């Protein structure tokens, strides 16, 4: 399925003339997001009618530009201006913008484009303009099946983000998570997947058994998670395209806390037996199992470094939960968290330089980051309960879940997904159809 999608994205690069004059600095909290204008993509009447019939959308051009607008706004780095103020019509702007007009409404960058229906396909071209320099910065065209229209919006967003910040975007991605419903004492949990912006939500299990902690394979459409199928908590593998499911951690005890290795070839997980939890790996090809830690303590929540050479995990071998790193063969175990409180759920940044974690100190939960030697701890957000950060593929944003405190009668419980920038700014609720927890961010679907 994915291969097919890639084949259909016949991407052609039109000539690029300009050099970057606008730059967005994403290393600091951006309190002055860049004002830009996303002109609705223009569309001719014939194409408009065709898409109306196929996609049941009145104007697919403005639908796609709305996706771009929302993505850029959500990033916190850009401030898409109100369309009310636009002076130039979309089709003319795409040919040659009247830069004075866009300058007047204080747009520093402008996105224009055109949608056409060609050979039963959706063809989208878009241009990014530097308004102050009066120059084209980028021009691209995509052809794909019409049903892929949302992804086109995400890919355009990624291209704009990359051109203006110098780093890859994270919009053409998905989130796998646990959808929750019902009273706190008897929560019904289902595996669910959605686009990064909440669209195309799909439930992958029925809720007959408890499921927890899904994680994406960074290289394919596979997911690993914990299921209580037949009351035996075990690690499972699921192909989200075909729906095939299999148990991989069928050891005589509980297997839990699964993740993939960066090359997607191994699963790393915990195996609990007789009150001890150790970390194991399983090679998915030959099913060889390797014991990585060997200690009477609880060793869990493992996370590989992006180069696969190290593993971060949490252990209570010192008496309380703390973060440790070791070589991927289990040697050279070293504690790295030494601050006040307990530390858990280490997650190695895709850039390799930071570890995100959950911290509990004096009755408050924090999401924070530290360098891989444990120094430079920065706490990004504090709350009654929150945990399990997962990185966006470009390592700039963290998604996690937060639970509310109930009142004296035990009422008012909720669990929601939130995202926050690495800078500690731009904290946002991620809208989901139901309550949600345990989010995991996919890699970019296209590159």
């Amino acid at each position, binding site marked *: 399925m994915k291969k097919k999608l890639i084949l259909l994205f016949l991407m052609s690069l039109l000539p690029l003339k300009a050099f970057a004059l606008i730059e967005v600095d994403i290393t600091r909290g951006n309190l002055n997001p860049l004002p830009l204008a996303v002109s609705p993509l223009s569309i001719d009447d014939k194409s408009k009618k065709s898409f109306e019939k196929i996609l049941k959308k009145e104007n697919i051009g403005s639908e796609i530009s709305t996706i771009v607008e929302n993505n850029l706004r959500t990033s916190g780095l850009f401030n898409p201006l109100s369309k009310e103020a636009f002076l130039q019509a979309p089709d003319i702007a795409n040919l040659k913008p009247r830069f004075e007009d866009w300058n007047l409404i204080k747009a520093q960058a402008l996105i224009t484009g055109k949608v056409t229906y060609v050979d039963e396909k959706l063809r989208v071209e878009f241009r990014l303009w530097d308004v102050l320099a009066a120059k084209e910065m980028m021009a691209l065209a995509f052809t794909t099946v019409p049903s892929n229209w949302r992804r086109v919006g995400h890919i355009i967003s990624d291209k704009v983000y990359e051109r203006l910040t110098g780093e890859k975007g994270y919009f053409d991605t998905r989130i796998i998570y646990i959808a929750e419903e019902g*009273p*706190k*004492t*008897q*929560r019904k949990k289902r595996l669910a997947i959605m686009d990064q912006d909440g669209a195309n939500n799909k439930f992958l299990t029925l809720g007959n058994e*408890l499921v*927890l*902690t899904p994680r994406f394979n960074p290289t394919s459409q596979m997911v690993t998670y*914990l299921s209580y199928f037949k*009351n035996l*908590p075990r690690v499972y593998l699921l192909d989200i395209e075909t729906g095939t499911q299999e148990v991989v951690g069928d050891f005589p*005890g*509980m297997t*839990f*806390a699964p993740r993939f290795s960066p090359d997607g070839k191994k699963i790393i997980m*915990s195996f*609990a037996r*007789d*009150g*001890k*939890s150790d970390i194991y790996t399983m090679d998915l090809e030959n099913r060889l199992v390797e014991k990585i830690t060997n200690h009477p303590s*609880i060793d*869990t*929540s493992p996370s590989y470094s992006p180069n696969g050479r190290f593993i971060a995990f*949490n252990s*209570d071998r010192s008496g*309380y*939960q703390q973060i440790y790193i070791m070589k991927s063969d289990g040697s050279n175990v070293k504690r790295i968290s030494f601050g006040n409180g307990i530390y*858990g*759920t280490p997650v190695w940044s895709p850039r390799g330089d930071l570890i995100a974690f*959950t911290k*509990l100190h004096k*009755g408050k939960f924090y999401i924070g980051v530290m360098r891989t030697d444990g120094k430079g701890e920065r706490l990004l957000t504090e709350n*009654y*309960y929150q*945990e*399990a950060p997962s990185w966006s593929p470009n390592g700039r944003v963290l998604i996690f879940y937060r*639970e509310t*405190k*109930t*009142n*004296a*009668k*035990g*009422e008012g*419980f909720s669990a929601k997904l939130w995202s926050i920038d690495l800078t500690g700014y731009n904290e946002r609720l991620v809208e989901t159809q139901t309550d949600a*927890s*345990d989010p995991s961010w996919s890699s970019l679907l296209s590159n």
Partner: protein
Amino acid sequence: MILSKIYKNTLLILAACLVLTACATKKEVADMQGQMQSDVYTGTDTVEYLADGVPDRVFFATNETVLTTASRETLRAQAAWLRKNSSINVVLEGHADERGTREYNLALGERRANSAKDYLMTYGISSDRISVLSYGKERPVDAGSNPLAWSKNRRSVTVKAN
């Protein structure tokens, strides 16, 4: 005849109401006192019985898996009952409170259930008759976000498997 029946029913309902009110008041008092010693739950109002006089659950301190004196007494009663009912197998379900990360709590629940299992074994119950299942913080009995609720949730429950 009919009248007297109605009269009788009313009396019964009245009596039932009285009992209910009495229960409610008693429970409130218990909640207010917060039956805890340091932070281990010592109450009996949530306990179900495996058999007459044999409570089904034991409670733990925060982040602890050590059995308290009361817990050991409960488990000795369970062991005695299991020795008498040798055809019954049990599942020990280990639980944690909501104040910990999900995965660590799964491991903690497993360790708590195993600590109960080890104790039952020292009182002569074969490990073949005991399986262990951890729910971490997934199945609290009390939905509250307060120390008393958490203390009720940090537990290992002995459940008949057959």
